């Protein structure tokens, strides 16, 4: 067997509430078909939204060069899986928190995720306001106000998770934030 050099792994976390679009985000940008751990939704309120949900993590990859790989880890949205945030959050380069812009109910969960990380492992973070292509979508400015981010340096950027260019813009905004912080 060929002795391959182990590539260094860089990790970005894609977090957010149930049905915010984390799996789609990773699928859109990953260079390989992402590994997902989806199970049938069991709660009736969740079944109304979608049939399957992520229970452990989604996982996508972007090769940077011969030595480095960027891994995108998607964490389950429901707060009952918050132990996963702990496991996956440690050592992350940054975090993208997704919200469903058409569903204000999901804003609270996004706030809980931000509270969690900002109180424990503060890393550069952006909020991506997904589903901006839908008619009832709240604007990124209003989501920023709703999440109390207007006085904090956490940007809120528009997103359509099915569109590769839109996903790239979100990742680039996060990388820009990381550059500002450590550059």
């Amino acid at each position, binding site marked *: 067997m060929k002795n391959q050099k182990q590539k*260094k792994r*860089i990790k970005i976390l894609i977090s957010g509430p149930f049905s915010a679009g984390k799996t789609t985000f990773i699928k859109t*940008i990953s*260079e390989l078909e992402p590994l997902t751990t989806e199970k049938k939704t069991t709660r009736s309120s969740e079944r109304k939204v979608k049939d399957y949900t992520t229970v452990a993590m989604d996982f996508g990859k*972007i*090769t*940077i*060069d011969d030595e*480095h790989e*960027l891994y995108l880890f998607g964490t389950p949205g429901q707060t009952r899986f918050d132990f996963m945030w702990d496991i996956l959050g440690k*050592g*992350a*380069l940054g975090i993208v928190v997704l919200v469903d812009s058409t*569903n*204000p*109910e999901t*804003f*609270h969960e996004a*706030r*809980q995720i931000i*509270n*969690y990380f*900002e*109180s*424990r*492992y*503060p*890393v*550069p973070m952006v909020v991506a306001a997904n589903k901006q292509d839908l008619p*009832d979508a*709240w*604007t990124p*400015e*209003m989501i920023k*106000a*709703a999440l*109390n981010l*207007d*006085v*904090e340096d956490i940007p809120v950027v528009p997103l359509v998770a099915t569109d*590769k260019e839109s996903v*790239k813009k979100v*990742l*680039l905004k996060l*990388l*820009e934030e*990381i*550059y500002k*912080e*450590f*550059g």
Partner: protein
Amino acid sequence: MGFSGNLKDFPIPDIFQVIAKEKKSGILLVEWKDLIVAYYIKKGQIIFARPIDKITRVYTERDFEKVIKKLRVDPKKISQILDRYLIQRLDNKEGIFSLIFGFIRYTCSEKVYIPIEQIIMLASRQLTVSEVRRKISDNMLTFGWVKEKKEILKRLQLSPVEKKVAELIDGKKTVGDIRKKMFPTPELDVDRALYGFWSAGLIKRLRKGKRHKPEGLTLDLLKRIIEKVKDL
């Protein structure tokens, strides 16, 4: 432009928080279980409330001065009207709301009878445990004052419990610490006060220490990651 939702998912203090922060004018329509009320907003303040029979009516009557004349409202009674159709309804959790910014014309003379920050505090006092936990979700949360603290405090009438909670906010104590110091005051009352302060824009969440640079991250590597993502 505006937003809509259900009061069960997005409670009143949060709606008013967005209105206060956006500082725009428009109309908030709330379809309560028993009544539809139009709330007139001028630059982020609620200045009038009016029960309506048809939603379309508010969109056809765009001149606020004419609305007041048509309804024969005595300006001295506006605070009583706001009390009846807004303040007394703050404990009501069922209904749907929609807010549309723009389209309504105001003059310069409309008065603000109850500052929106005070309405937020009053609404926060009605929150349930599960509602409060959506925002005050973590024992380790730490708050500090915003620059505009003095001006906002002038517009608020805090309860004795809220005053005590305010005295404990120093940018160091966590929510857990404040709850302990406030004992035997029920946690719910402490959390409601913090929820109200945060929604009213009086306090802000503080980050725990500096952001840590991940091991092995160099400027050169970061530039390469950025270039790679651009080329995808």
